[in-house]
């Protein structure tokens, strides 16, 4: 295998060469460099449209890479310290699903925290694997789910010695990491794989003083959202594999569901982002952490808000905190996170990542400027001045431990009844209910519906959370398993 330097971008270079050759195209896509869709060409730019091509010999094929895509993937594997890397163009959702589906078959168990992204539970619906949930700790004050305690993972492994894998969020949406290294040692000693959802962890591979990344911790597979903090285009992602994974099988599993028309715009963005991270990552994430730390300091000075960080670390459920995350607790100014999120956008023209019941999350990157950071801080100061109120009536908890009474696949495909959601307590849920973002299910197929959960969804809805997952677009009705 020839060793390429990280300065190279094999796929990007092949596309540049292809563009200069001015080929006559009698293949798809039919817009033919934008000539067949002028409005789109003006909107997205002629250069972009010219690069939106189909796979062909000089440009390799994502489903069966043998040349430039293969080389670009090898460079990515090298950059991330993985044995092999796959370019994913169906979102990190596809990477998460490929990890699970190449590890578990129908009826097999997988140990995971309940605060996984919906893509993980979706994979269980598709492949029929059965979740064993580990209750992530909860921080009572902030109302956020934490990481998994090693002790709880150990207990789950002892109780389920037949489980195939342990899945870990590294980090959670809020920036919280479990003790990944110990979990890997533990799982491997019992012959289980470790799968890591690193949707929010690309920078762990390149920044300094970051929590440990999955490949370094010895995990078997990791789904890395390059587009989130790595600088590639939305929907592009990487699936990383460690040493003892049959990657030819993984490729087959990926090809079960991934498109056969992989977008060269997305793939070349992965190639170029990887180069940028390799060459400039340290500096990029130093700048990101500086921005985030400055913002935390200033926001905490405003009073009422609490921008939390490493002080939460407790050697257990918050083993490490991602210093690039700007998570802010808002409840003490008397506003739900989602209310602050809406005010920021509607009144101040500032779009942040998400707001939930008690917190907001702003994504900081090296693409930010002091100017925008100052705007965010000043807008939060104004929101407190103009809208802050007494916090006594605020809902004060977020995580509800679910009761799984049926495997997700069985519940999803069972015969179902539709009932008004507020009258569904006591039933078994047959679909998802969640706020999006963050996309962590409040209810998943196969879980018992309780009054407590309904109170929570009702409150979230009233505060303006964007609820999704149910067949009923207005989330007034819910599908439950038809029993008896």
């Amino acid at each position, binding site marked *: 295998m020839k060793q390429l330097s990280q300065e190279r971008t094999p796929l990007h270079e092949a596309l540049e060469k292809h563009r200069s050759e001015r080929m006559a195209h009698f293949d798809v896509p039919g817009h033919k460099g934008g000539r067949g869709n002028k409005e789109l060409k003006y909107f997205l730019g002629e250069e972009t449209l010219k690069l939106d091509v189909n796979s062909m010999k000089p440009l390799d094929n994502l489903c069966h890479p043998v040349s430039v895509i293969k080389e670009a993937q090898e460079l990515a594997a090298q950059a991330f310290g993985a044995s092999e890397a796959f370019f994913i163009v169906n979102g990190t959702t596809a990477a998460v699903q490929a990890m699970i589906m190449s590890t578990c078959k129908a009826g097999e168990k997988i140990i995971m925290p309940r605060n996984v992204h919906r893509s993980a539970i979706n994979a269980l619906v598709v492949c029929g694997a059965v979740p064993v949930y580990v209750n992530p700790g909860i921080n009572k004050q902030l109302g956020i789910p934490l990481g998994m305690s090693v002790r709880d993972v150990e207990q789950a492994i002892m109780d389920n010695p037949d489980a195939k894998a342990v899945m870990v969020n590294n980090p959670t949406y809020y920036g919280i990491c479990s003790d990944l290294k110990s979990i890997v040692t533990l799982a491997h000693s019992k012959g289980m794989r470790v799968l890591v959802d690193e949707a929010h962890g690309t920078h762990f591979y390149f920044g300094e003083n970051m929590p440990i990344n999955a490949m370094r911790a010895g995990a078997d597979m990791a789904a890395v959202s390059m587009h989130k903090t790595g600088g590639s285009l939305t929907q592009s992602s990487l699936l990383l594999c460690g040493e003892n994974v049959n990657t030819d099988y993984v490729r087959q599993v990926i090809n079960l569901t991934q498109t056969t028309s992989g977008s060269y715009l997305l793939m070349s963005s992965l190639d170029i982002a990887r180069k940028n991270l390799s060459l400039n990552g340290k500096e990029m994430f130093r700048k990101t952490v500086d921005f985030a730390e400055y913002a935390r300091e*200033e926001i905490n000075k405003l009073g009422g808000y609490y921008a939390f960080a490493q002080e939460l670390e407790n050697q257990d459920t918050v083993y490490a905190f991602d210093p690039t995350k700007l998570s802010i607790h808002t409840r003490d100014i008397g506003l739900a996170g989602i209310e602050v999120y809406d005010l920021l956008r509607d*009144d*101040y*023209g500032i779009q942040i990542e998400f707001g939930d019941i008690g917190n907001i999350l702003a994504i900081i990157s090296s693409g930010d400027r*002091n*100017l925008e950071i*100052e*705007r965010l*801080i*000043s*807008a939060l*100061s*104004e929101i407190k*001045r*103009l809208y802050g109120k007494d916090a006594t009536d605020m809902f004060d908890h977020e995580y509800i431990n679910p009761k799984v009474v049926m495997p997700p696949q069985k519940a999803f495909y069972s015969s179902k009844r539709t009932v008004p959601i507020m009258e569904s307590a006591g039933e078994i849920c047959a679909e998802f209910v969640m706020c999006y973002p963050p996309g962590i299910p409040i209810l998943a197929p196969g879980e018992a519906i309780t009054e407590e959960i309904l109170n929570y969804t009702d409150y979230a809805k009233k505060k303006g959370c964007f609820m999704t997952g149910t067949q009923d677009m207005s989330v007034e009705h819910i599908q439950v398993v038809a029993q008896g």
Partner: protein
Amino acid sequence: MELWFSEPHTKNVKLSIKIKRQVYSEQSRYQRIDIFDTFEFGRILVLDGFLMLTEKDEFIYHEMITHVPMCVNPNIKNVLVIGAGDGGTIRELTRYSTIEHIDMVEIDEKVVEACKRFLQQTASSLEDSRVQITYTDGLKFVRTQQDQYDLILVDSTDPFGPGEGLFTREFYGNCFKALKEDGILINQHESPFYSDDAKSMQRAHKNIAASFPIASVYQFHLPTYPSGHWLFGFASKKYRPLEDMHAKEWETLGITTKYYNTDLHKGAFYIPNYVKELLEHA
């Protein structure tokens, strides 16, 4: 040899000024700073390619930003000026012996340095003992102030580049908080004429009106700014720009001006119909 400075006023319109010589050029951390000598306008200051002032017409801008609020409230003692690195606004303010303290907040120290060296016409009063200069982001500075100032003057560049944050709702809200209960805010309010400038103008008005009970604009004519038709915003917690003006009192101060007078003060607030409409639909 002919050397010309050109600034696009829109995609299809530009203003060109013939240059005698380049006096100064530097890339600061925030922007490119250029100073030229010209045949028609004297010395000119250019930031990131945009003309900020000329020796020939700067008096119009600096008199109008200063004397209008000073005539409405002659008791102004504590002033905050944001931007204004060239010093022209400070020069006009220091003509009032009644003003006790002026905080000037400029993001780019290099602009002040360059103007002190090469633009004494405007920078002449920056050394006045009442003036305290702080080099920081205006948005950041004003956020930390409360119930402090009688007057805030926002002498900013355009709403893109380093001055961007000074056109936002959070900035105007923070100014409201920094002002005393009878405080006045004057801001560089862009132009109603060309559509891109007009959009900025509308956005600024909308954001100011969301924070202040009294929010209006007044106009002046600056030959070297796009279209020549330019606006300042007058926002206030208590005083109205016409009803509360103290014309007689101001006249007895004996401040000599080239552009401003108390009749023009009144006239400046009578704006054309199309501008009224833009403000109504901001």
